[in-house]
């Protein structure tokens, strides 16, 4: 199977100034773009599309893959520094990342994010290179019924994100369930739940929802606080000069290694989620975060610890390689980004299909080499950006808060060019403000908003295929039975864990009196 000649050929193709330059530019633009809220990978690649016409195959791949990987990491920079996820997939990073910034550990959080991103990304790429065909075949086993149960497992697992006050977590999940149905019926295509507003027909978009709930709500909260303070005559204490001071905490190798469990969870979840078409990096990062929080209770994820950042970021970056699996194995683009990479291949006259391994082995190897190299570039370029942003995160709040508000407004517009998205963002900014005040967590809302529509679609498809037979449609294979069992198991276990947690909480009631408040679990 391995063709040494083609591999050497590929190295010649990749290791030249031209390819490396485009890779650098790709990562550079990607990280920069990813860090601006609302501008995601697909925007970036669309903007660069005319440019790829003029490049050779490796240059084009370098640019597109660099941009993709850069943007995946870049999103976390602003999530950590400003609580403003640059892209939806870094929303789960806000919980611990922003809290660390508030504690003055912004730089440490950014480094954790960078290193765990690059680690999970590289390992998932190796996984793809080694077992892409097997992964692809496994993914094919997931038909509508299996996907339905998989979503049920995902939702059951995410009970961890609902926090101590279960009813509030579930209420948030119910909101997500409801707003996820706004739009059109997945089977019939007729619009539903749109309140007679035609523009709601495409549903609520994820980007403005996340910018609103995560960024705008926090900015409103901080602005209201600042208004109180300035009424009371407080001065802005931080000096602008602080920005240029060099006293910063850093991340030791030992600290990096201490997150190995979180990174493994992220790697496993991300790789699995990435290879199934349609799920995406956002689901991966929330799932990884939720599972890590559940499995590692002693790490106290959500209180501003490295582990939370590591789990979420390794989760989303680990999807980068596996998302190409269906593309390489069957020519199916599993995600928007995979479609764009497939487009870049097509531009060079290479149709993504199983034949590619025989006809263009050199290009495949070049693609793999670029996948790995891009991680190294990300490490260097990402580091520069991270430090720069960490400094910006130290700007005085009266400067930062309005600036982020402006970026939230233009970012939610720029993501699709849809003016209504600005309104959606502001609406959810206000909803988020209220939810934060009332102590309702955001994470369950996002998760059900993402997963419930997929669950509905798969379930109805499974039943439609079986001709209206519910039992036969949903339990039609050993795999769906296993997944159903897993869902039940997770539910039972989480109930028991919650019970023991409660006992523990009672025992430590005194200790927890003054503990740091907690974004995700309040």
């Amino acid at each position: 199977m391995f063709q040494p000649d083609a591999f050497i050929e590929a190295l010649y193709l990749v290791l030249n100034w031209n390819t490396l330059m485009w890779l650098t530019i790709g990562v550079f633009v990607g990280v920069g773009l990813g860090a601006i809220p609302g501008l995601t990978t697909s925007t970036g690649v669309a903007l660069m599309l005319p440019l790829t016409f003029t490049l050779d195959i490796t240059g084009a791949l370098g640019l597109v893959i660099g941009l993709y990987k850069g943007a995946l990491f870049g999103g976390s920079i602003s999530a950590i520094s400003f609580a403003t996820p640059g892209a939806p997939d870094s929303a789960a990073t806000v919980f611990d990342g922003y809290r660390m910034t508030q504690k003055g550990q912004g730089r440490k959080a950014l480094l954790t994010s960078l290193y765990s991103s690059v680690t999970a990304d590289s390992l998932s790429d190796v996984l793809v290179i080694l077992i892409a065909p097997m992964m692809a075949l496994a993914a094919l086993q997931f038909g509508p019924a299996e996907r339905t149960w998989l979503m049920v497992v995902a939702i059951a697992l995410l009970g961890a994100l609902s926090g101590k006050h279960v009813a509030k977590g579930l209420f948030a999940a119910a909101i997500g369930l409801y707003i996820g149905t706004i739009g059109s019926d997945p089977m019939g295509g007729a619009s539903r739940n749109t309140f007679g507003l035609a523009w709601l027909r495409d549903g609520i978009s994820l980007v403005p929802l996340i910018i609103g709930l995560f960024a705008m709500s926090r900015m409103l909260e901080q602005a209201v606080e600042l208004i109180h303070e300035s009424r009371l005559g407080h001065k802005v204490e931080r000096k602008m000069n602080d920005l240029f001071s060099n006293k910063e905490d850093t991340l030791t190798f030992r600290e990096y290694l201490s997150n190995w469990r979180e990174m493994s969870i992220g790697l496993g979840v991300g790789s699995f989620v990435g290879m199934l078409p349609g799920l995406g990096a956002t689901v991966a990062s929330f799932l990884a975060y939720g599972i890590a929080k559940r499995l590692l209770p002693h790490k106290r994820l959500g209180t501003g610890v490295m582990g939370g950042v590591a789990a979420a970021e390794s989760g989303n970056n680990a999807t980068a390689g596996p998302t190409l699996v269906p593309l390489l194995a069957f020519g199916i683009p599993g995600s928007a980004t995979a479609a764009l990479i497939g487009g870049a291949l097509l531009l060079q006259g290479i149709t993504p299909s199983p034949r590619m391994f025989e006809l263009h082995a050199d290009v495949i190897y070049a693609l793999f080499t670029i996948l790995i190299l891009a991680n190294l570039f990300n490490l260097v370029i990402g580091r520069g950006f991270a430090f720069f942003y960490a400094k910006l995160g130290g700007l005085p709040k009266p400067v930062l808060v309005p600036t982020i508000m402006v970026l939230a407004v233009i970012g939610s517009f720029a993501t699709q060019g849809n003016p209504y998205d600005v309104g959606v963002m502001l609406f959810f900014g206000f909803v988020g403000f209220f939810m934060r005040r009332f102590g309702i967590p955001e994470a369950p809302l996002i998760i059900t908003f993402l997963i419930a529509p997929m669950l509905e679609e798969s379930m109805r498809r499974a039943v439609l295929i079986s001709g209206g037979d519910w039992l036969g449609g949903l339990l039609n294979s050993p795999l769906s039975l296993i997944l159903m069992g897993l869902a039940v198991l997770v539910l039972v276990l989480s109930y028991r864990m919650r019970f023991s947690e409660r006992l523990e909480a009672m025992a430590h009631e005194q200790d927890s009196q003054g503990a740091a408040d907690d974004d995700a679990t309040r």
Partner: protein
Amino acid sequence: MPAYATRFSSLLRSGLLALAASCLALSPMAQADGHGDWPERDIDFIIPFGAGGGSDAWARTISTGAQEHFGVGWNLQNRPGAGATLAWEYLLDQPADGYTAMLSSPTPVMTALMEDDPLVDPLDFKAAAYISAFRSLIVASNDSPMADWDGLKAAAEDSPVVIAGTNALLAGVANIFDQAGLEAVYVPYSSTGEAVSDFLGGHVDLLAATASTALGIVPERGTVVMNTSDIALPEDVEEQLGGNVPIAADFDFEGMRFPRPIGFHPDTPDAVVAEFSRRLETLLTEDESVPAMLDRMGEEVIFMGFPEANEDYVRLVERMRTAIELLD
């Protein structure tokens, strides 16, 4: 702060200037050659989808030749929303002076047909040209008894077959099945990827796919049973798909294609629309760079000019209306 401001912008600039410069170099800087009345200024070109999709790629590619062939530039505007009809509503709000064009596709037409109270009337559109078209191909797995039309027919007469695909492609198949008097369960998917993976995993019997999707599956894992459109596949594509792909007309069915129309506000003067169509035809067929780029993207130019395209558009809407009713 000022020090930071400069550092920030220079940081970004240094990386992006190279890109910006190359982008500029790409667009032909030819001088305006328009001597007539129209066009006197840039044309707003509306894409009813967000950046990054197929329509967006078409628009961005064609617009690189705009300056040379129209003497003015095209301002591309992505206006997604409301099942791609928000852009259409915007088009109808603009003056009918030929300075706002829209790249349509089956999606907005389907939205307008499926809604009870659509934003726009699907016929409120003057098609200046069709620039391309989708064909819906029926794909079956190689070892399936449905791998040829007779086998498929026999199976479908026995019990309804299950076919996966996006709504527009399913409508193309429904059009044929209706003519053949066959029953099927049409399973709609929002993403091609999921439909293909369910087909490959054997969870559904058949797949409705475009030619470019089929290229990833056929011949290793599937066979094209029929091209349900009224246009044959390009020779090289047909060859890659195993050759001799049956087309609807072979079985005396009336096939249906899904064009990509470019059009204007319905009140736009015919002379302007015709002039646009003429220049666009030169751009798409005689230009050197644009057709080559489209070819490299795996896209195919299937041009139909004004007024033929506009006359066909009316029939297209009717055909799609019928096909959508068949899906339910």
